[in-house]
């Protein structure tokens, strides 16, 4: 009975805390400007099924894709087992599904065990890739101590959780063979049976092992759940809405700024009266100038670095790294959110995403080639953020590099980015 109360208290606290932190992330995301992504639900569900559920964009890197799909499928399926653990924890039962499901239960447990072992193996390979082989994709200026530790914490936690799950099953299995207490035969434990010989023979020690692993496994899962909102691992949840709300337009199509359209129309036609839409700022200086989708992108980023590894600017040694753009956006947004919690809604810390986080040199290195957008497995768009910040630098600050100002001047004066007269525009036809 005491164990049940402890379990219920821990479970309630974990769910409450998680809910509170998710609400905070949601509030932060909604600090962004509005953008309508409610159109075309059928198409959006389709993309979500293909890209999130089906992980279609992962396959470009087959090794990572196979390892990732193992962990992903393992994670989703093994969570069915967590359902049983919850019921057992609340009602004080033991393997409550074993009897009603019979042979099917045995099959399920067998499947979970095999998956658990595969997840464990995949996580070990992931750790080796990051820490021993040191793949280039996982380094870079933005990959400082915390992002690197974050990745390792996630992998180590998953290894520990899977280890506990398998050890729990192994001790349970051994107790079942001994027909001890309430440990009724529950089916085959393919991996547990292999581990069982390594465990002590005393029933007392086995019960302790089984219980310790059971508690470690479920408390570990609940703790991990609460780690998610602070971690890049949050992608396991946000990937789904983030892909649902993907940009459905062609990648080459940039947004037309409505706030500019009115003013341009008034310039070309003095009789035109623009609608009185008050616009606070052209482009983005800080995270609150970006759209909520840009901000959701930032929280969804799992720092895999596929974007940066295909960025022509980054490949050739420029400062720009699309992954850094996303991480900076997230870190700045977290800072803004924390400021709101501490000092209220209107607090101004005299900092901004531009300059305090992202430098102009990074912005001007972008070729707008869309390689980063194409590469992202969860449909994040770093290019939109870069473009919005360029808009701020150009239209609010007039701080374009001199050569670009020349180009603008030429376009204004003679309708071409170069200094050629518009009246010479057909000269190519003369000398053929």
């Amino acid at each position: 009975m005491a164990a049940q109360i402890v379990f219920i208290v821990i479970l309630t606290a974990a769910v409450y805390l998680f809910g509170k932190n998710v609400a905070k992330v949601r509030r932060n995301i909604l600090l962004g400007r509005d953008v309508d992504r409610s159109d075309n639900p059928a198409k959006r569900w389709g993309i979500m099924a293909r890209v999130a559920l089906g992980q279609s964009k992962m396959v470009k890197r087959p090794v990572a894709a196979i390892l990732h799909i193992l962990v992903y499928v393992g994670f989703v399926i093994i969570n069915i087992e967590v359902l049983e653990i919850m019921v057992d924890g609340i009602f004080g039962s033991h393997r409550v599904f074993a009897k009603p499901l019979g042979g099917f239960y045995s099959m399920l447990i067998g499947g979970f065990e095999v998956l658990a072992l595969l997840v464990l193996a995949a996580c070990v390979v992931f750790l080796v890739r990051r820490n021993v082989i040191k793949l280039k994709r996982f380094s870079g200026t933005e990959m400082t101590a915390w992002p690197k530790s974050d990745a390792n914490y996630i992998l180590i936690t998953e290894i520990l959780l899977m280890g506990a799950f398998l050890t729990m099953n192994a001790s349970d299995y051994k107790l079942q063979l001994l027909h001890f207490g309430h440990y009724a035969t529950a089916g085959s434990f393919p991996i547990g049976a292999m581990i069982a010989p390594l465990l002590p023979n005393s029933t007392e020690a086995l019960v302790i092992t089984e219980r310790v692993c059971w508690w470690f496994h479920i408390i570990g899962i609940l703790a991990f759940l609460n780690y998610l909102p602070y971690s890049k691992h949050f992608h396991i949840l946000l990937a789904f809405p983030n892909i649902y709300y993907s940009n459905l337009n062609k990648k080459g199509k940039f947004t037309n700024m409505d706030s500019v359209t009115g003013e341009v129309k008034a310039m070309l036609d003095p009789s035109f009266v623009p609608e009185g839409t008050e616009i606070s700022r052209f482009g983005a200086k800080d995270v609150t100038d970006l759209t909520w989708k840009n901000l959701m992108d930032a929280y969804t980023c799992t720092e895999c670095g596929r974007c940066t590894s295909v960025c022509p600017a980054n490949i050739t040694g420029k400062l720009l790294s699309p992954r850094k753009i996303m991480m900076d956006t997230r870190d700045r947004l977290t800072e803004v959110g924390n400021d709101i919690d501490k000092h209220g809604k209107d607090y101004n810390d005299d900092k901004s995403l531009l300059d305090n986080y992202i430098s102009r040199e990074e912005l001007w290195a972008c070729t707008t080639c869309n390689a980063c957008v194409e590469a992202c497995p969860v449909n994040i768009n770093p290019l939109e953020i870069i473009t919005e910040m360029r808009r701020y630098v150009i239209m609010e600050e007039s701080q374009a590099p001199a050569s670009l100002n020349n180009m603008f001047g030429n376009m204004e004066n003679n309708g071409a980015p170069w200094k050629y007269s518009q009246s010479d525009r057909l000269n190519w036809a003369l000398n053929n």
Partner: protein
Amino acid sequence: MELIIPTMAQMAAEGKQPDILFWVGCAGSFDERAQKITRDICKILQHVNISYAVLGTEEACTGDPAKRAGNEFLFQMQAMMNIQVLDGYNIKKIVTGCPHCFNTIANEYPGLGGNYEVIHHTQLIQQLIDEGKLKAEGGESFKGRRITFHDPCYLGRGNNVYEAPRRALEVLDTELVEMKRCKSNGLCCGAGGAQMFKEPEPGKKEINDERMLDVLEAKANVIASGCPFCMTMLSDGVKHIDKEQEIKVLDIAEITVRANGL
């Protein structure tokens, strides 16, 4: 072939309406290398008897480099002035030799009131080949060459046009090879996003030099392109590795003209 290049103004004066407007673009109008490609596109149009015209001195920059650089004001000014001209001539269909013009007019003008059917010249060439109006005979043979196609970002990733330019090359009796980074994984030439008009930010190397690694690895001796900016960057890249004799950079339109002896 003697080129007759009609302008919209002339046509309108004669009370005629062409089937398609050839949007030349700034590079196609002023850049010496691109001018040659412009004339080749005209040769193709004339060869297959398509009724077309150009805007000539009434054309102005689409505003693409201004928009990519963040100057939305200038972009919309250019766009609205161009839309006025296009609508004034009642233009419905446009072909262009520049993926940047193509992307801007096709995707960004509709929001500002300019609605046209826009195709890139490689799509037109593909269409003509599929209809049997254009072949690869009577001209230069590309036999024994190794041709690779460099995907322009605003044609490929930007608008998912990957097959049309390749189709134009498939009709040649030649060896087509793909670079390691091709199609949706294609590497930018380095000119997009208004980089064409500024010095690159400091780094280890130039992007077009990085692209040359792919060209050399594919052992291609012809780089086919479909964008005047890519043309400049790739030609410079070939120059940097001192392979101007061995490796030629040619636009799909130039290859088509040569193969047909136009």
